[in-house]
């Protein structure tokens, strides 16, 4: 186990080191001292308790989207629709958070989270059933559903759910009683981070200690084999899609009730896609996912605040992120290769 942790850490560290080298060269070219910049990034990410909290806060939505992605990728289902489920789940939770009576108090938490999970589940059930029953390519269907999610939520916050107090594209704030508590005030790090960790742990448990998780892993490795030993591949596919939708929806709810306290344009700046990179980097392993989410959280939070202390453009952080993602995509390529091979074998 410990060696697997070590190898997973290397799996994350190696791309990081390479991306640091690449961005170091870029920095030299634009006449900056890379060591100064990197140490600035390090302090801005982890320099003190407050910065660590900011990093974890930025990592929080990624925990959910990465787990939601990993559930599917591990099972060989190429679901890229976590972004959409995160959006619709978040909007559902926020909507109930400001329309239900504030007097309901803490009861709002389970209600909002349940609604978000349900909407997320329905959202991804659709491409799941399309794939399982009609072999509609899930990459295409989930990608399209993302556009639909952006359009629907965009319409709602620009129209029916627009805050009457605002000229901008935001809903009203949810009731204060429905705010998830902050863990280290004044930092925005909120209880959603813990819920995210619970999701990661539950995912780890699901993989190893449930028959459904066992089957998911098997169909991810070899569908023909799974079929031959009596596993229903369609049912497993639909199952992991629903699970993915539940987690993504809960993630949207946590983001809405813990961080934003409302829904707005830009509610998710692509957490679903960054979550994909995290899942790929972490090789779908729970520990890898936590490390990957923290890495991307650090880049997001430090990448912004270093602009306060040096005239490093956001682009540099994007270069670091991008290089790390390239490695994640290498892994993506391996998965899609396996898909192709799997199809060829099935034929």
């Amino acid at each position, binding site marked *: 186990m410990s060696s697997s942790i070590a190898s997973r850490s290397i799996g994350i560290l190696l791309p990081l080191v390479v991306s640091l080298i690449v961005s170091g060269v870029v920095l030299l070219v634009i006449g900056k001292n890379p060591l100064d910049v990197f140490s600035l990034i390090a*302090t801005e990410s982890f320099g003190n308790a407050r910065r660590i909290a900011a990093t974890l806060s930025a990592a929080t939505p990624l925990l959910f989207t990465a787990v939601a992605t990993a559930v599917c990728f591990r099972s060989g289902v190429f679901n890229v629709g976590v972004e959409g489920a995160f959006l619709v789940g978040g909007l559902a939770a926020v909507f109930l958070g400001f329309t239900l009576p504030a007097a309901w108090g803490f009861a709002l938490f389970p209600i909002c989270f349940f609604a978000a999970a349900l909407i997320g589940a329905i959202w991804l059930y659709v491409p799941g059933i399309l794939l399982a029953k009609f072999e509609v390519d899930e990459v295409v269907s989930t990608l399209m559903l993302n556009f639909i999610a952006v359009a629907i939520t965009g319409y709602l916050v620009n129209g029916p759910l627009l805050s009457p107090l605002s*000229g901008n594209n935001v809903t009203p704030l949810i009731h204060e009683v429905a705010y998830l508590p902050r863990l280290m005030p004044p930092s925005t790090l909120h209880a959603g981070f813990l819920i995210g960790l619970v999701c990661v742990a539950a995912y780890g448990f699901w993989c190893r200690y449930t028959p459904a998780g066992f089957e998911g892993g098997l169909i991810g490795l070899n569908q023909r084999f799974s079929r031959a030993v009596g596993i229903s591949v369609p049912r497993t596919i639909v199952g992991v899609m629903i699970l993915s939708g539940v987690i993504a929806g809960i993630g949207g709810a946590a983001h809405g009730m813990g961080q934003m*306290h409302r829904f707005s*344009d*830009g509610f998710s*700046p692509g957490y679903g896609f960054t979550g994909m990179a995290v899942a790929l980097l972490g090789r779908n392993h729970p520990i890898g996912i936590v490390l990957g989410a923290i890495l991307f959280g650090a880049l997001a939070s430090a990448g912004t605040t270093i602009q306060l*202390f040096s005239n490093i453009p*956001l682009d540099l952080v994007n270069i670091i992120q991008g290089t790390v993602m390239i490695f994640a995509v290498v892994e993506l390529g391996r998965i899609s290769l396996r898909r192709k091979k799997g199809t060829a074998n099935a034929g």
Partner: protein
Amino acid sequence: MMTNMTRRILQVTTACTSLMAGSALWADERPAAMIIAQGGLGDGSWNDTANAGFQSGLEKTGVEGRTIESADVAAQGEEIMRRAADGGFGLVISLEWIHGEPMEMLAKDYPDTNWVIMNQTRTGDNIASVVFGEHEGSFLAGALAAQVTTDTSIEGINADATIGVIGGFKAPGIDKFIVGYIQGAKAVNPDIEVKVAYADSFGDPAKGLQMANAMFDEGADIVYQVAGGTGIGIIEAAKARGHYAIGVDSDQDGMAPGNVLTSMVKRVDVAVDEIVTGYAADNFPGGEVIQFGLAENGVALSEMTHTKDKVPAAYIERVTAYKAQIIAGELDVWDVSSQGYPDFFK
């Protein structure tokens, strides 16, 4: 371990300080930070205009300043602003609407920092809320439209004294524009009919196109768009039908040259520039709601690059006269956001 980390923090803090020390004025004035709203720099509109004002303000005053962009500006706003305050910035401006509530909270935690928010009113002794006199600018747009709409010598204009306005949403923030527009139109022609409609969306160009066409069908030939992205459809409709739209917020005249009569421009550059200048002069308007109206050059009609040759100079002169009256305080334009709804518009 701990001491190691502490040392590292010290090192970096020193490094930061030395980075800042490049400016001779550092000792006098703490630096300024401006957080770029969603859309980022390069949007050719709100953020870029504000940044132009920010840079010119910094240049004039010698204040050190940074613009902060983030891919996740909505969720991370509070952390960014807190970090700026922690990091010793004396002035923190946010262009992002959604940062209003967290800023109100942060302003209490950081009383020595000066905070600026746009397009909304936030309370706090150290917060300056910048609002624009959109009603005043809209008044001028209405006055111009009312004159043009009956001049059939202008291409695309019919004889009906009918103009229109389409809002994104029925809300005080939008009706502020609409009421000013109506008031301006009626000042020119008390009998004019101003058709009002709401798209119930800021992001639906197709709907904007449809609604503008409907207004054109009913005899309107000039439609003022107060509907964000929906307005793109309104301008499209004007272009397709050969009628006129009036743009909003930024100079939209170029979106359909010749078919955008004028644009009611919010000069956020002027606002930011003045805020920075005031800050440098120890004259920060903390706790105030600063109106950037016609007098402050915070709102204006566009240059009318593509239409000024079509419109008789007399009309523009009359508009300029109204502007002078408003600035002089001889003419009051109704402000829905502070006065509520007037009798003529419920």
